């Protein structure tokens, strides 16, 4: 049993992303990329300069948003550093 001194809680990992770009993948065909301003215990998030991607049958619908409070309910995955996709 090796004990890991650098044990990191998931919430601490998100905390380190505050102020930087983050890629949010929702349940269903929706993704958002923006700068993380803060979050709470439910992982509701405040994001800034957000690009929202909705994948539909016709293609990708892109919405730009100034500042949002995103409900944590439908968040599936968080990726620090933003999307690898070019805009």
């Amino acid at each position, binding site marked *: 049993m090796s004990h890991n001194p650098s044990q990191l809680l998931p*919430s*601490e990992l*998100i*905390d380190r992303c*505050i*102020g930087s770009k983050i890629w949010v993948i929702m349940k269903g065909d929706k993704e958002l990329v923006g700068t993380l*301003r*803060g*979050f*709470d*215990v*439910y992982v*509701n*998030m*405040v994001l800034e300069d*957000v690009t929202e*991607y*909705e994948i539909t049958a*016709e*293609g*990708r*619908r*892109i*919405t*730009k*948003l*100034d*500042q*949002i*409070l*995103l*409900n944590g*309910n*439908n968040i599936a995955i968080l990726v620090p550093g933003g999307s690898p996709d070019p805009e």
Partner: protein
Amino acid sequence: MSSGGEKAASGGGGSVKTPADFLKSIRGRPVVVKLNSGVDYRGILACLDGYMNIAMEQTEEYVNGQLKNKYGDAFIRGNNVLYISTSKRTLAEGA
């Protein structure tokens, strides 16, 4: 759901804005509220709480980006809310 504000504040920097801070800052401002169904509501945010229950004025209902309805006052139950956005929005169709 009282939006436990202090949880994320371990950074201590002044730039941290928790959901609770955001809710405080946007009352009375024009907002876009998107529901999980994809429907958008644009209007003036009259009042809201930690459940994201929302009361709006001069509300316009947009379905697929098209104006479908107008309401003088509207209450939105928080469980339907995907996000609340400060108003500044452009739409574009991507490939």
